[in-house]
């Protein structure tokens, strides 16, 4: 046999061809086989999932605040619509839904050929029924049940409930969140999103190359979200909101630039929140279909989307005097001239106090009451909200601390304030809570270094700064919730509870998924006598002859009035424009405290005149079951 070189060469070329094919076969099947196997498996499966109905939000009595209903959506599967019938289907849908045919056509085009088109997201039951009954006239058109969030109480408790929306980049980092999901963006909807959202249901189909469904491979039912039960009481909530509206109207009627108001009602025995409101409010339902940019901007500029009860920072003003009050009793710090509280009143309030400064100039501090309060003791000072008395306590601490003496700690007042929860987040179960501020030398010096302009730069921390702190002015900032919670601890004997919006989360069968147990944030020791004095003096603010809230509560029956204690506050915001923020914090029943209310009317003016009457209306509801109307009687112009 003679092969010949030409045949041999041809043979080599042939061999090479087979080697190349075999190598490529090896590459595809052995080297990259796994990868292709996954690709094959993936394209043979089609997963259609259904969103889970979001869990309900209920108040403590079972009133529904947020729920989910099944809406009928008209969904067109374009792959099932014969091309020649598509114009006819578009025409029919347009007529049925009363929208321009061109709009329906755009939806079709956007979905692409063979895509899914949602034509009507929430159509009337009659329309859905019509499509079902005339199926042959609507080829490829199906009615699907889609969960839609509803808020039956409209704007009530909106800031507590919150709202939902499309997930942002950070939401998408959470496990199991997809771009087409709906997530809680604010309030309980956000804080308890994980429990409310439930789990999507899905059906896995086996499909052929034409995406035709051959068989069902697996099915998982959508698991509805759990029900969140709040500590909130819808009745109290509505009373609070109405009274805040009234206070705003009252302030505006008197020419004040009042725009916002916020309030909290909590239980001093365990920190549960009975009501929390921020005005202006919004309707969470607006977010379900999505707000337009204009609507969003408009409401956002008003502050409607902020919960000022936990996000609003205000100088607590005279409500803060109770901090120094407790310190005076517990640490025995009284003004120099003053006798012990049990002794005869020995402090004379002239209405102003003057300091001689080093350069012979004088600095004058004036009480809110120009003519002064006359002879006062600690109790009278709280009742009448005497600035001079508390300034004297501040000066006493100042002069015996730091470089000037070792008797006290320079930040002694601040430490008491912090023990009561001021200057730190209360860790309430709501998002975006603000921490507030209790300033001291340390903070002041850091501010001088790190944020010039925030504080003065020409001197160090001074006694005058402590005088500002003691009356809740200067740089002291607190949220209404912090003020309410601090007073709760003042009247319950020194326990600072963690405020709780949610009581528990239960599943469909009523099983408890989560119980929000009461938790103590801290306890400071108070002598029983201190608590008793505190309660008694808060009662005097409301009931006493010189009480700053006397007028606001004067028309209440004496038996009821007697059970109420409180403290007014008027925060000086802009002295030149005479803009003040009105505060009132109230407690009832004062001998066995069950409700603490804090109300702030931003730019509302005097606490005694504007905020106290609003609190009175809430107490009327709480103690007498009286609904709050839209009438309000102003109180006395007092600090």
């Amino acid at each position, binding site marked *: *046999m*003679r*092969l*010949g070189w*030409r*045949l041999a*060469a*041809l*043979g080599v*070329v*042939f*061999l090479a*061809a*087979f080697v*190349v*094919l*075999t190598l*490529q*076969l*090896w590459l*595809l*099947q*052995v080297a*990259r*086989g*796994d*990868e*292709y*196997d996954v*690709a*094959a*498996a993936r*394209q*043979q499966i089609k997963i259609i999932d259904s969103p889970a109905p979001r869990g309900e939000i209920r108040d403590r009595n079972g009133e529904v605040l947020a729920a989910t209903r099944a809406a009928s959506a008209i969904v067109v599967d374009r792959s099932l619509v014969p091309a020649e019938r598509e114009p006819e289907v578009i025409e029919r849908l347009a007529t049925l839904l009363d929208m321009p045919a061109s709009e329906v056509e755009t939806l079709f085009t956007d979905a692409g050929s063979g895509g899914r088109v949602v034509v009507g997201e929430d159509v009337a039951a009659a329309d859905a029924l019509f499509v079902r009954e005339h199926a042959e006239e609507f080829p490829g058109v199906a009615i699907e049940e889609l969960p839609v969030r509803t808020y039956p109480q409209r704007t009530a408790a909106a800031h507590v409930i919150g709202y939902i929306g499309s997930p942002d980049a950070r939401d998408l980092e959470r496990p199991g969140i997809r771009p087409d999901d709906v997530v809680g963006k604010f309030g309980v909807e956000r804080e308890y999103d994980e429990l409310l959202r439930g789990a999507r249901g899905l059906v896995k189909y*086996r*499909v*052929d*190359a*034409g995406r035709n469904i*051959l068989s069902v491979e697996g099915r998982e039912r959508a698991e509805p979200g759990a029900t969140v039960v709040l500590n909130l009481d819808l009745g109290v909530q509505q009373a609070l909101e109405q009274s805040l509206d009234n206070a705003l109207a009252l302030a505006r009627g008197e020419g004040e630039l009042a725009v916002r108001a916020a309030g909290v009602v909590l239980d001093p025995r365990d920190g549960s929140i009975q009501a929390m409101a921020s005005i202006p409010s919004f309707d969470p339902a607006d977010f379900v279909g999505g707000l337009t940019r204009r609507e969003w901007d408009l409401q956002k500029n008003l502050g409607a989307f902020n919960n000022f009860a936990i996000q609003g920072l205000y100088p607590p003003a005279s409500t803060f005097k109770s901090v120094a009050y407790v310190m005076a009793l517990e640490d025995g710090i009284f003004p120099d001239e003053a006798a012990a509280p049990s002794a005869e009143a020995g402090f004379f309030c002239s209405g102003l106090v003057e300091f001689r400064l080093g350069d012979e100039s004088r600095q004058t501090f004036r009480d809110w009451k120009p003519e002064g309060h006359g002879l006062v003791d600690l109790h009278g000072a709280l009742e009448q909200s005497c600035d001079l008395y508390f300034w004297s306590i501040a000066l006493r601490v100042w002069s015996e601390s730091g470089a000037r003496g070792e008797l006290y700690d320079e930040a002694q007042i601040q430490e008491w304030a912090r023990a009561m929860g001021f200057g730190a987040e209360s860790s309430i179960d709501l998002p975006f809570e603000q921490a507030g501020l209790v300033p001291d030398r340390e903070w002041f010096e850091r501010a001088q270094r790190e944020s010039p302009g925030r504080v003065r730069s020409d001197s160090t921390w001074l006694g005058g700064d402590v005088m500002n702190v003691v009356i809740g002015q200067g740089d002291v900032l607190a949220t209404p919730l912090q003020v309410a919670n601090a007073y709760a601890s003042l009247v319950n004997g020194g326990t600072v509870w963690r405020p709780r919006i949610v009581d528990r989360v239960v599943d469909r069968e009523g099983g408890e998924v989560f119980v929000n147990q009461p938790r103590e944030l801290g306890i400071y020791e108070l002598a029983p006598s201190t608590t008793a004095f505190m309660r008694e003096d808060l009662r005097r603010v409301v009931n006493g002859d010189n009480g700053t809230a006397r007028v606001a509560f004067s028309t209440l029956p004496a038996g009821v009035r007697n059970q109420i204690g409180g403290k007014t506050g008027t925060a000086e915001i802009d002295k030149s424009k005479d803009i003040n923020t009105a505060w009132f914090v109230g407690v009832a029943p004062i001998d066995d405290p069950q409700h603490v209310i804090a109300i702030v009317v931003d730019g509302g003016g005097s606490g005694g005149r504007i905020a106290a009457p609003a609190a009175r209306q809430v107490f009327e509801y709480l103690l007498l079951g009286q609904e709050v109307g839209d009438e309000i009687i102003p109180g006395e112009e007092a600090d």
Partner: protein
Amino acid sequence: MATLAGSRVAWAERERAMRPDFVLIGAIAALSALSVLMVYSASASRLEAFGLPSTFDMRRQAIFVTFGAAAFIGASLVKERTLRSLVPFAYAGVVLILLAVFPFGDEAKGAQRWIAFGGYQLQPSEFAKPVIVMTLAALLAPAEEGYMRWSRVFRAVGLVGVPSLLIFLQPDLGTMIVFGFVGLAMLFVAGTTMRQIVALALAAFIGLGVVLSLGVLRDFQLERLTAFLDQESDQENANYNQNQSRITIGSGQIFGKGLFAGEQTNLSFVPAQSTDFIFTAIAEQLGFVGGAAVLFLYALVTWRLVMIAARARTRFGQLLVAGVASLIVFHVFINVGMTMGLMPVTGLPLPLMSSGGSSFVAMALALGLAHAMWLQRSPVPGERQIL
């Protein structure tokens, strides 16, 4: 003159000469049997979906294999001299029948390739393949190695060119490319100079470029070619076939998913999976082991053909067998390469495997003719008649 002993020697000699090439026949039989099985596995689920009996395509293929076996045996018995005398008639017949496609042919998938013939459709271009090999062998046989005249080269190009052009106009780009390769291979074996081979290869490339730029190609052909050159593009359309083909082959992995357990095949993800893409069905179900075995069977056939060519009694026989071997190898390379993404999608069948009568019978015929050259080989190794 014939002594007893002498005649006995002659008889033994004759018997040995007539012994068929069992390796070749065994490999062809194995491929044919596998073809029936694979056509069944690749068509059953689709036929059922259309409400047809699932064995419909398989039975047709079995009939084609029977015809093919008959063609192989018949061709094996043809005398070399007779075959040479038939060449002009076969060539003329093929050109005529290729011309007949245009007025009488049926159009399918954008191409005119079939002529209805009884209950079957005849595909003339398939039969053109063995005939062109025969014709080239006859034309090139007298050439002397290393001294081929340009005039003979041009005649060869002309003889291949006419049927190629007719096939190209159908249009069937794949078959034309095969002719080009086969022609080059045969010219090379026949003894062209290196310069001639290089010139022809260059001319072929330029010719292909001209064809592409002149826009003679139908849209679908151009789409397939550009898709091949730009693999990432447009996965939905032109590249879909090859992507699915690759996924299907790859998912078979080493041992395959098992016979009739090829999901990709059963769910019709691969187009033309019982015809042009039948290799995907093999690779998915039988895995790398099965796919490589099939390639090995083709390699076995090729090896035997090269050996037969080496022992052919005449120059014509040698060229004929070399041509048949080229035909097989180029079909396998282009077809299997296409399923694995090495070659662009052109409608070429996998010889002896793809569902289809014309292709199977024509290939069996070509192999039968090659086998005839084996049966008539020289008893003395290396001996060769000059004419």
